[in-house]
């Protein structure tokens, strides 16, 4: 026995020494087989190397992830109300969701793009768009808040979206062709009568402010994805169409009849010049333009009228169609601007067009007829190359800046690396499952940072612990620094990410604001210190000018409110220290809390319905005395005449 035990003990020790040795044996299965875990591990307190801005799809919001860790850093509300932050609920942000259809609490956020200078990411702003009620938005990357939302009139299913390489224009295409201008007509008469306007929004280089510049009234072909030309092809933009049949019913069959659809090639500089010289006609339109002032935490919504429209036939040499097999989806331009990768999602091959060949074909005027007066280039003349048997259902392509392209395949559920030199497939890796977009930081610019690739998958199935029938979508991070791609990490995403944009953290993080300065607070009802706090009555409106600091409100006792009053709490956070927000909640308020950053003021409307004494409190744990951060409001009967009184600690 003893002998056996001591042998056993020895054995055990040996095994333990191997097991605990850390670096010992890495040839096992799973994450331990490689050092994948180590490569995505960001130690506690350390920062990620990249920011990733992920579209939130039908959540209407945009989320910020750290890469390579896949940690969720923030959800930034854009097109949907966000009760957590009070966005779209408090008085200051309600106007952000105003449209020509009235207040809309939800949106479907699709693509995202970071602003560029000379075709390189500059980290000033990230732009995005909404598919359902056509809108585009700018998020400011110093506050990580939505700064502006512009409605796109005369459009529907706002989808194809791109930012030009000096952020001159934002392009917003029409996915669902519609009568233009809108009118009461038979749906059956769609063909030849519906239009697909492509909208160009001018970006102010100082403020990022957006202004509707012009709309190119294209045929109603359903515009899908768009990308700008860059470097050599700067001044052009490209967008796919998937319904050149102009089918108005059962599109899954009827929009898949033509052997080829089109990529539109549009020389926007030429059109810009045309408009500048007085070209184009004004069309009736009404659209909301919502601008948020970060210093006042207040948005204004302005209804604007009229849009300059341009008929492409009137500008010879500005718009062309490139034929491409079978309902193309993605349309991606490589860092040099020479290659335009078209992904016919029902095609067996991947088509790559050559920009220089396209220019030559245009110069030679060697057309293959026209569609609604727009010249169609000959497929063979502009073809750069074909990637043969790359996979099934190609969707999107990004680039690593080392001569390689990476394309996602939805049906065969994989990401495929191929060479732009010889169109040969270099590597393929499965995705889990049914990948849509992919993102390489800067992969849609002149200067990609080809270290990581993120695949955004549409179907999750068994990748995580089940959470009922609904699962968050899944993203996968691959290391693409070597010849072969390596899957490092799965992480869940919010809503349905249609695209993401990544950028080295160093281009943004030093600009991130820590506080709003009290002396720059421009809120109409801000107070600078406790001595300015007060309560004022104007008819049945009561305005409470309140402050908050760790850990009390001033005033915290209010009397003289009556049932039926409209009580506006204008609450200023007097803190001036990083990451000391306070929250504000009032019992019975038919809205969300206020979440107020240091130095900011926000306004909540409360309409008391019953007499009594009602508490208010801070919702965001702020200090050891957070639980004590509370107050009371006395509500007297309607028609009574109580004296308006307010105090803090009896003063």
């Amino acid at each position, binding site marked *: 026995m003893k002998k056996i035990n001591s042998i*056993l003990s020895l*054995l055990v020790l040996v095994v*333990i020494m191997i*097991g605990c040795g850390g670096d010992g044996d890495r040839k096992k299965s799973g994450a331990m087989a490689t050092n994948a875990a180590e490569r995505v591990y960001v130690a506690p307190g350390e920062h990620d190397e990249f920011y990733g801005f992920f579209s939130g799809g039908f959540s209407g919001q945009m989320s910020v992830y750290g890469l390579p860790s896949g940690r969720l850093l923030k959800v930034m509300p854009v097109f949907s109300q966000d009760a957590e932050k009070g966005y779209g609920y408090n008085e200051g942000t309600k106007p952000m969701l105003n449209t020509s259809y009235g207040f809309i609490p939800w949106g479907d956020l699709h693509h995202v793009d970071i602003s560029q200078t000379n075709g390189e990411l500059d980290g000033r702003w990230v732009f995005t768009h909404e598919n359902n009620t056509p809108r585009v938005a700018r998020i400011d990357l110093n506050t990580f808040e939505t700064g502006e939302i512009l409605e796109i009139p005369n459009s529907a299913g706002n989808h194809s979206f791109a930012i030009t390489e000096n952020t001159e224009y934002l392009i917003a295409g029409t996915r669902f062709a519609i009568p233009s201008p809108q009118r009461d007509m038979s749906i059956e008469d769609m063909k030849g009568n519906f239009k697909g306007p492509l909208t160009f929004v001018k970006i102010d280089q100082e403020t990022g402010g957006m202004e509707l510049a012009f709309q190119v009234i294209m045929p109603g072909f359903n515009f899908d994805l768009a990308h700008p030309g860059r470097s050599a092809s700067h001044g052009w933009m490209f967008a796919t169409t998937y319904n050149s049949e102009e089918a108005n019913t059962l599109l899954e069959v009827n929009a898949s009849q033509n052997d080829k659809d089109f990529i539109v090639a549009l020389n926007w500089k030429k059109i810009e010049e045309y408009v500048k010289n007085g070209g184009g006609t004004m069309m009736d339109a009404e659209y909301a333009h919502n601008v948020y002032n970060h210093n006042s935490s207040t948005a204004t919504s302005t209804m604007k009228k009229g849009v300059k429209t341009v008929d492409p036939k009137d500008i010879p040499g500005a718009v062309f169609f490139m034929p491409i097999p079978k309902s193309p989806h993605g349309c991606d331009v490589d860092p040099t601007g020479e290659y335009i990768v078209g992904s016919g999602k029902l095609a067996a091959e991947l088509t790559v067009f050559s920009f220089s060949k396209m220019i030559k074909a245009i110069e030679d005027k060697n057309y293959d007829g026209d569609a609604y007066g727009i010249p169609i280039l000959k497929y063979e003349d502009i073809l750069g190359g074909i990637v043969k048997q790359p996979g099934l259902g190609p969707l999107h392509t990004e680039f690593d800046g080392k001569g390689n392209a990476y394309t996602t395949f939805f049906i065969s559920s994989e990401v495929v690396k191929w060479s732009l030199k010889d169109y040969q497939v270099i590597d393929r890796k499965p995705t889990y499952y049914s990948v849509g977009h992919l993102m390489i930081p800067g992969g849609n610019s002149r200067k990609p940072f080809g270290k990581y690739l993120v695949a955004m998958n549409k179907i999750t199935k068994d990748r995580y612990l089940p959470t009922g029938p609904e699962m968050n979508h899944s993203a996968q991070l691959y290391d693409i620094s070597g010849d072969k791609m390596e899957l490092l990490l799965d992480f869940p995403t919010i809503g349905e990410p249609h695209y993401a944009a990544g950028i080295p953290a160093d281009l943004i993080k030093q600009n991130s604001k820590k506080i709003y300065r009290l002396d720059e607070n421009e809120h109409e009802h801000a107070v600078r210190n406790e001595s300015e706090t007060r309560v004022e009555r104007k008819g049945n409106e009561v305005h409470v000018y309140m402050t908050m*600091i*760790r850990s009390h409100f*001033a005033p915290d006792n209010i009397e003289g409110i009556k049932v039926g009053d409209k009580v506006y709490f204008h609450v200023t956070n*007097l803190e001036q220290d990083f990451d000391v927000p306070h929250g504000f909640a009032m019992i019975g308020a038919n809205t969300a809390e206020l979440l107020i950053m240091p130095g900011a003021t926000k306004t909540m409307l409360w309409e008391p319905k019953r007499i009594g004494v009602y508490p208010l409190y801070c919702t965001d744990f702020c200090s050891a005395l957070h639980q004590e951060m509370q107050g009371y409001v006395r509500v007297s009967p309607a028609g009574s005449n109580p004296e308006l009184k307010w105090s803090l600690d009896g003063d």
Partner: protein
Amino acid sequence: MVLRVILYPNLNKTLFMKSHIKIFTLLAGVFLMISCGDSEKKEKEEVKTGDYSQEAPKKEAAATSSKDMVDMSNKGIGPIKSVTLNAEIDQALAVKGETVFKNMCTACHKTNKKFIGPALVGITERRSPEWIMNMILNPEEMIAKDPIAKQLLLESNMAVMANQNLTEEEARSILEYFRTLKEEI
């Protein structure tokens, strides 16, 4: 602890010694605790919950009061190493300081009465100029390390001194304003 799960089935299979498995398991457990258990042990020591013994913290509090802690040689901890005060008060600077004080400090401080934090009248006789400015500019470190600031935190019900991100010039103007404060009669 993943190791235990992996180790046992493998060894059980290979050794075919059912009668010794128990002893072996025990042994393995002991070795594991010695060789791999360190982190777990540390964790336990660090996470002390439910220690409700009343002596330790109270002793410290009872031992002293900020009233007995007048130490003009204590310059505090922070960016301010040396301040020279002119005998004459710079009235313009004091007026500027009063404005900054009103906007940035009065949510917690009154001059003649304890509010969230202490009353400020007479502070220039109790604390060195450097201590005052460091308390304004570097409150987090002060309440963590400086003996007087630590005591004041206790006396303020653990309400921390907020960092209002003032500049050195603004803090200096507040100091000048403090020099003008007089006890109300």
